[in-house]
């Protein structure tokens, strides 16, 4: 029981098919009602797919756990319909400060580029995110089954059969597709005898949530080797409800049970804050971590997402953030396959694209871990030399690695991209996660990313003379009735309307600038807000070929 939060308890209801001893088959079954499983469930419902969500427990995350939600995850949560609640409750911050011994040596601003809707990152206890996601799942009619634990998985060529244990005994269920979002220890992965390979780090961290009235700004503070905790690192950042998260590196030899005791934790925090600040201990945990992933995230009709598929060190907040991006990549592909509009091999690109992203996340979080917790004298010497130089020299500040905060991967090697044939500059290359920008819609100021993504492909057509599109407009509108439809959207420096196409008013010319677009440029967008292709001139054949390529329909 926390002082600032009461864990909800969700009612277990005996499943109909268990009560009636009847068989049931569902298009999609998801295992694990954490942030990633619920994001997948909500996205399925937004695509009109009925979904059963199984969870062995009946409440939200115990303890604050994942507390940093990065810009890209927030943009996806916006699309899923919980972004505002998360951001309103969360603590927004952009500035991070890094200390070595007693001195501040470095600070960074996570979002130096203005005119994006969402900040670089917000802090919020995981239980709030889960609570909002549960409520959204219920609103959208997800069949949520608490206290339902999967005890066997049987893979068939056209379905997956599950045996599920409830307080009333066991029952069977059939699924066309199974999404395993059951966490780092994934029982589904174990039941299927699948391996997950990587590196265990020999270190322990203590996390403490404390309630305090401390006079700290909403910033992230990171200490290397501070006087109050010699030879180790400490991280302090603020969450909602005046709860502060403090991470203490303990070293491998620490005894987790001993370190968790309040009489051990409280003096540590007092030493850090100075004795005069009052605080109450809310929650304490000791953790170790691993950086590893499965070889493939797709195994026939079973799709692994989030920690079940890949795990990273906590530095950089790449766990839940990357898991939410997994679902963003997966669900539109699954929908096309289920509708017979794309071959099953499109789902293999879920695996290859997210494996590439997981490797980038593992690489970055491993590098942060090696910088924060050097494992050799040489490594420690270089780390301290960088921190010493960082006080005076910009090049050394750039080398200080206290966590490279979660940013989405550029899927530049994806087979779904159509390579450029025209000259473009800037970073919105095929495979790029889209940059946001302010746009005008019917006279209101809105955001580009809020206008895009979700169900289908879209084509941005940049023109300031929309009224003179002539029969090009017909060619654009014809794309909407293709088997895999494409919605044309006019982006113009002038406000206005066009029959049969939405118009986004490029209020500050930032869309054109960020995408290096000129009069007549077109950009094909995937449903997960990644650039699929771009040209200087609209050609319907090329657009259709690129859509075919992006859906494995070539």
């Amino acid at each position, binding site marked *: 029981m926390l002082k600032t939060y009461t864990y909800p308890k969700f009612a277990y209801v005996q499943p109909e098919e268990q009560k009636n001893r009847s068989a049931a088959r569902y298009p999609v079954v998801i295992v694990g009602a954490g942030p990633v499983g619920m994001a997948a469930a909500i996205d399925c419902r937004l695509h009109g797919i009925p979904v059963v969500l199984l969870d062995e427990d009946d409440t939200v995350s115990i303890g604050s756990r994942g507390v940093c939600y990065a810009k890209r995850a927030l943009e996806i949560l916006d699309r899923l319909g919980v972004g505002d609640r998360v951001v309103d409750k969360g603590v927004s911050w952009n500035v991070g400060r890094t200390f070595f011994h007693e001195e501040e040596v470095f600070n960074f601003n996570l979002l130096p580029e203005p005119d994006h809707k969402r900040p670089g990152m917000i802090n919020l206890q995981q239980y709030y995110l889960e609570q909002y996601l549960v409520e959204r799942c219920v609103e959208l009619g997800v069949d949520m089954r608490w206290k339902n634990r999967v005890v066997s998985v049987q893979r068939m060529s056209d379905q997956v059969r599950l045996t599920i244990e409830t307080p009333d005994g066991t029952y069977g269920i059939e699924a066309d597709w199974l999404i395993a979002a059951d966490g780092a220890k994934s029982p589904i992965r174990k039941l299927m005898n699948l391996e997950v390979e990587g590196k265990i780090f020999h270190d322990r961290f203590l996390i403490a949530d404390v309630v305090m009235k401390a006079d700290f700004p909403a910033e992230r503070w990171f200490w290397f080797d501070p006087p109050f905790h010699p030879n180790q690192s400490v991280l302090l950042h603020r969450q909602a409800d005046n709860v502060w998260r403090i991470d203490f590196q303990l070293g491998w030899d620490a005894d987790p049970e001993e370190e968790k005791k309040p009489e051990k934790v409280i003096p540590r925090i007092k030493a850090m804050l100075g004795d005069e600040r009052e605080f109450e201990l809310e929650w304490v945990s000791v953790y170790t971590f691993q950086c590893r992933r499965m070889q493939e995230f797709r195994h026939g009709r079973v799709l692994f997402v989030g920690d079940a598929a890949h795990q990273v060190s906590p530095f950089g907040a790449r766990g839940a953030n990357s898991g939410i991006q997994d679902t963003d990549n997966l669900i539109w592909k699954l929908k096309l396959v289920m509708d017979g509009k794309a071959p099953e091999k499109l789902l293999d690109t879920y695996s290859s694209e997210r494996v590439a992203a997981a490797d980038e996340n593992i690489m970055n979080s491993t*590098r942060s871990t090696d910088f924060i917790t050097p494992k050799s*004298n040489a490594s420690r010497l*270089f780390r301290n030399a960088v921190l010493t130089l960082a006080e*005076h020299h910009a090049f050394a500040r750039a080398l200080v690695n206290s966590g*490279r905060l979660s940013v989405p991967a550029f899927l530049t090697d994806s087979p779904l991209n159509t390579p450029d044939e025209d000259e473009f500059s800037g970073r919105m290359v095929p495979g790029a996660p889209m940059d946001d920008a302010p746009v005008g819609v019917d006279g209101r100021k809105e955001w580009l990313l809020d206008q895009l993504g979700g169900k289908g492909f879209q084509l941005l057509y940049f023109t300031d003379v929309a009224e003179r599109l002539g029969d090009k407009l017909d060619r654009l509108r014809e794309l909407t009735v293709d088997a895999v439809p494409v919605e044309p959207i006019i982006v113009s420096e002038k406000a206005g309307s066009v029959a049969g196409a939405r118009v986004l008013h490029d209020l500050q010319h930032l869309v054109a600038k960020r995408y290096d677009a000129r009069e007549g440029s077109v950009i094909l967008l995937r449903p997960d807000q990644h650039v699929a292709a771009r040209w200087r001139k609209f050609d319907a054949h090329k657009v259709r070929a690129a859509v075919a390529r992006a859906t494995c329909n070539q």
Partner: protein
Amino acid sequence: MALTLTPNFSEPGKRYFRAFSPGDDFYEMLIDTHRDLDDTQSALLNAKLILLLANHVGDLSVLREALALARQDI
């Protein structure tokens, strides 16, 4: 030519989407090069590395500046 003190790492032909990537690439290479060496071996490696890079830089005025900055705060 003055000593470069702003971030300067890159690899010809490689495109970086994140400002921290080339520096982190270098740092990983540096630490990896020291893997499994004892302290004496590491110190020797560092000395050889400084000599190799100093010869590459060549310009004694740049090296003088670097030497002076390295000596600071010690």
